[in-house]
């Protein structure tokens, strides 16, 4: 486990160059901007930036993108607390107690609690990655096609089994993503699939275009529909109060640890940061000694979701690096980026490109420290940006989305496609079809199909290959159990406790 230390130190040598630190700062600032602006979230922000990194070297590119991710996660909490508007879906739970605190005149305290516990959660996530990733990768190096397919199946199945919500809607979203991924030239036989004679579809449907439509345009429509009003509370940060608040942090050690554990678990399995923050808030509210104070400005109600949110965000990189399976929609976009830069995500990356892997991990330590400092320092600046009327900000975001779509492949057809995905994103969000499985399926679809068909080549067409050894058999069995889980739960007539907690947290959200 500790063999990784020299590798990590080498990673720090890579990450600590002026060039990379500058990229980190730039990435974090862009990320905070993206996180602060509603309708422009982490997955969409990373997607918009991705085409501009095609010519960069992969280490610099991934440092820029991950830093943007950290920045976006932090920025989302700023608007939750000051404006009661979550900049990111994963910071919805932060509004429950963060905004009441700010209204009680404790904005500085709320922001400090949020950022410090977020930083703590992220650090726990990164430490878990440092300690476990190469062990997981070593283990995964033994994988061949059947095991890989079983792992993909497990990732898809866990959305259905653990995602909460309507399992049929999850399946619709997931299989639509997989079907979109099959459009274009088939990698094995070379035949053109689902193109219906349109030349524009030969390249396939880019997941980047899909993400910009689903998360960008779709979310903007929702924001407009709600008739956005920014009712800011005073956002002056007093340095003295910041330090006083930091001194109070150890009181919440239990909430920090519990939030981190929930976050790491939800990040490693593809639950993602949003589910993690709701679950952590729900659990904290139920078991806290001050549970009566939750929803009225309880610091623990800020600490719990923020810790879990960031622990999940950073630990989502573990399965992405070690197995090639992203734990969140944003990680899925980055995984797609890796493939575009010519890297093969998955265990072989640790052998072939240790500089990339450990440079990235080291940059996660530094990037989060940079992010905590920058986000505290820039609160007044970004709060001022939100005072710019949304009638200007929203059209600017729309323009940036279209430009982002164009930079993906310089294709006119993609401009129409992003509109279609915008409509899908809007409908799915309103009708509670989960969007993350669709994105994950689009990124992993080809690889999953390849693994499946290669397994079939190995076995001469027998599905028994997925049970041919204990490893593949166990993975496949768990995946099948997860797929069947919603049906089992329905028969038992009771939903999981966490789903109840999430629902309770939803109810708690004051109708505004």
């Amino acid at each position, binding site marked *: 486990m500790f063999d990784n230390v020299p590798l990590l130190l080498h990673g720090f040598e890579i990450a600590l160059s002026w060039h990379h630190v500058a990229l980190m700062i730039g990435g974090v600032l862009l990320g905070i901007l993206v996180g602060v602006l509603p309708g422009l979230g982490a997955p969409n922000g990373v997607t918009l930036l991705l085409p501009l990194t095609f010519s960069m070297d992969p280490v610099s590119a991934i440092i820029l993108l991950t830093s943007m991710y950290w920045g976006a996660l932090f920025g989302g909490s700023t608007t939750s607390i000051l404006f009661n508007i979550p900049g990111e879906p994963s910071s919805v739970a932060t509004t429950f107690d963060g905004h009441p605190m700010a209204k009680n005149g404790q904005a500085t305290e709320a922001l400090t609690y949020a950022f410090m516990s977020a930083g703590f959660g992220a650090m726990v996530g990164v430490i878990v990655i440092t300690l476990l990733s190469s062990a997981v990768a070593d283990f995964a190096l033994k994988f061949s096609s059947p095991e890989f397919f079983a792992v993909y199946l497990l990732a898809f199945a866990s959305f259905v089994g653990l995602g909460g919500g309507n399992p*049929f809607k999850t399946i619709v979203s997931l299989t639509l993503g997989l079907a979109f991924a099959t459009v274009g030239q088939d990698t094995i036989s070379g035949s053109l*699939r689902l193109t219906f004679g349109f030349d524009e579809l030969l390249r396939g449907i880019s997941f980047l275009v899909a993400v910009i439509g689903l998360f960008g345009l779709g979310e903007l429509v929702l924001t407009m529909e709600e008739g956005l009003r920014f009712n800011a509370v005073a956002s002056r940060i007093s340095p003295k109060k910041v330090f006083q608040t930091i001194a109070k942090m150890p009181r919440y050690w239990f909430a920090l640890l519990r939030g981190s554990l929930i976050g790491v678990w939800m990040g490693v399995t593809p639950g993602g940061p949003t589910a993690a923050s709701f679950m952590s808030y729900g659990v904290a509210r139920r078991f806290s000694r001050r549970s009566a104070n939750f929803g009225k400005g309880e610091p623990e109600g800020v600490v719990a979701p923020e810790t879990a949110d960031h622990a999940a965000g950073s630990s989502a990189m573990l399965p992405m690096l070690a197995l090639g399976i992203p734990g969140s929609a944003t990680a899925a976009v980055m995984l797609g980026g890796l493939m575009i830069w010519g890297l093969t995500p998955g265990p072989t990356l640790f052998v072939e490109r240790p500089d990339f892997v450990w440079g990235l991990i080291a940059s996660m330590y530094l990037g989060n420290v940079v992010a905590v400092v920058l986000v505290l320092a820039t609160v007044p600046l970004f709060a001022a940006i939100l005072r710019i009327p949304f009638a200007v900000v929203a059209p600017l975001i729309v323009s940036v989305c*279209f*430009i982002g779509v164009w930079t993906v492949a310089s294709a*006119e057809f993609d401009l129409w496609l992003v509109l279609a995905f915008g409509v899908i994103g809007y409908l799915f969000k309103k009708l509670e079809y989960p969007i993350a499985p669709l994105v994950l399926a689009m990124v992993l679809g080809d690889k999953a199909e390849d693994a499946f068909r290669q397994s*079939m080549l190995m076995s001469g067409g027998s599905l028994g290959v997925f049970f041919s050894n204990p490893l593949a058999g166990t993975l496949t069995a768990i995946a099948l159990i997860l797929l069947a889980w919603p049906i089992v739960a329905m028969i038992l007539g009771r939903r999981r406790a966490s789903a109840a907690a999430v629902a309770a947290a939803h109810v708690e959200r004051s109708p505004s």
Partner: protein
Amino acid sequence: MSAEDRTIVSRFTMEVATALGAAAIGALVIYGANEHSIGWGDAGPEPGYVPFWLGLIIVVASLAVLVQTLVQRVGAGETFITREQGKRVAAFAVPVALFVPVSLFLGLYVATAIYLLATTTLQGRFPLVKAIPIAIGAPVVMFILFERWFQTPLLKGPLEAALGLY
């Protein structure tokens, strides 16, 4: 209840429509998969096999959502969108949709300028003194950023050609 709060369409209707739409996409996928062999050849699944089954799962799962909706009357009487919200959505979405054909004719820079000018003056009720600098400034910044800095040419139209900006 004022006219503005009236529901244009119920959630139930939209649930049904979306489930049917998803099923239609599934059917389209099945149809497309049938252009190839969907069987199980000597070397495992043929090219059409995976899309065929995916299409079938989409159809079955969306019909399951449909049946659930119809049986449990999910969202019946619930508001999907009110009149006022509908107006706001249309005011936002129609210019966005128009952005695409305009940019295909005039290029992304000019389309951005027109779009920003139209939305800030007509919807944001900005005076022209404020709106024009925004509408011209944003594409200029974009141009410097993308063409010069990132070396990523964006879609251009007749104006850029006339100015010799290729």
